[in-house]
């Protein structure tokens, strides 16, 4: 960034800081127990065919930039089932110098509870700065299905990330024990880093699918058969299934993910169409 940037390019004028807090509690019968929404975070509860409670979150600020803070806290009571998705893909725009956006999601799953965390893609733009963290604290027999997708610049638009920072952390504890962690770190010339052999190569997008459930092992062969070329799945330890899927663009990635997620939960929310 040049020091002589004209005023109208000053990101402070274009992108004020946004904050959003969402708290969702689900009780027996898959009914909403608590809902608190503030700032730029809202949740909608559309009617749908499944028996689970479907919450669709939206960011009324229209995107995320450096210094923004978004948090979601979900509590799923014994035997209940919550599905969380986003209304649109989340866009992480250019950050102001020295500022980093933070997005945190924390979920607590009681015995027999189930959470499906199915946000749409997160699209990184040039000069973004993001720290994202998903924490799941689940009972031994609870079920967690999660997908998180990163699109590193929109390939069809010729976008590249010459500079930026994205740290994406996942921590899952089951019965109090840490059983899964993922840490994606992209720093600097992110498009070049991704293009390195054995990082992403030609792939511009990646998705991580995590399924923690007592029946995870029984799903392994089904998922192996559904993996496209640049993808892998492993039953890392008992009850913990993890897949990483790479693709050239977000459309290809979604086409690969839909059968995988459908195999792990049945029909997807209407936001997950091609």
């Amino acid at each position, binding site marked *: 960034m040049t020091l002589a940037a004209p005023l109208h390019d000053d990101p402070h004028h274009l992108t004020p800081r946004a904050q959003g807090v969402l708290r969702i509690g689900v009780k027996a019968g898959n009914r909403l127990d608590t809902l608190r929404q503030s700032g730029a975070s809202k949740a909608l509860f559309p009617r749908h065919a499944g028996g689970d409670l479907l919450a669709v979150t939206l960011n009324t600020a229209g995107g995320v930039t450096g210094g923004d803070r978004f948090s979601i806290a979900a509590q799923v009571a014994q035997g209940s089932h919550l599905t969380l998705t986003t209304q649109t893909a989340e866009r992480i725009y250019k950050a102001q110098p020295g500022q980093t956006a933070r997005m945190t999601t924390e979920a607590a799953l009681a015995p027999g509870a189930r959470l499906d965390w199915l946000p749409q893609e997160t699209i990184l733009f040039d000069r973004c700065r993001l720290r994202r963290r998903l924490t799941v604290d689940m009972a031994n027999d609870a079920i967690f299905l999660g997908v998180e997708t990163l699109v590193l610049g929109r390939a069809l638009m010729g976008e590249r990330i010459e500079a930026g920072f994205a740290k994406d952390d996942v921590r899952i504890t089951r019965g109090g024990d840490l*059983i899964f962690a993922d840490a994606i770190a992209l720093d600097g010339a992110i498009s070049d880093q991704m293009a390195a052999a054995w*990082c992403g190569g030609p792939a511009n997008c990646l998705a991580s699918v995590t399924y923690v459930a007592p029946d995870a092992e029984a799903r392994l062969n089904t998922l192996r058969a559904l993996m496209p070329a640049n993808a892998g799945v*492993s039953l*890392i330890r008992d009850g913990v299934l993890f897949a990483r899927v*790479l693709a050239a663009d977000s459309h290809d990635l979604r086409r690969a993910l839909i059968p995988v997620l459908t195999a792990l939960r049945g029909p997807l929310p209407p936001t997950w169409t091609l």
Partner: protein
Amino acid sequence: MATAGRCRMPTEGLLTLMQWLSPGFPLGTFSYSHGLEMAVADGRLRDAAGLQDWIATVLTHGTGRNDAILLAEAYRSDDAQQIDALARALAPSRERLLETTAQGEAFCTTVNAVWGLDLRPMCLPVAVGRAARMQGIALDVTLSAYLHAFTAGLISAAQRCMPLGQTQAQRIVADQTPLCLSLAQAALTQSIDDLGGSAFLADIAAMQHETLQPRIFRS
């Protein structure tokens, strides 16, 4: 502080490290390819240049940098159990988890027996970090030696599953030495927050290795 332990001379610490990290130390390192066997089997990794790329990515954006951070944190911390739990949780596949836990357990067994330590079974980088701290071996040397041994182990695995001459193999190890040193230097000031990577295709190869037949490696 790092040199204030039981080793009176830095050379003594260096010799201990050389013993721990030599191919003759009974860790079973020869059983693991870190997913390399898969990359070779499906034709994506064919020659010395491809091997250089694979190693550089695994070191810079994958297990190399993360093992260095875990080792350094285990060296500095009084709660190795928590770091070990994180090291296990970060394994991206079942065979990678086996690779780091089985070698770590073997390391602890031998070090406990020979040096009289009381290490509980831990992942390899965590175990090496704890043992080096207990023996008063400097952290920077431990990190460099660990990363160099990791590199040499991977090249040795490559020699058994692809055409690679002995001289060529040693040249690749030597070429990666500056990278090992810079990653070791970086880990001195890094912490748990810095853990992370982007060696996605290398990790995917390790996942795909689970169904590879025939195979000579356990990962």
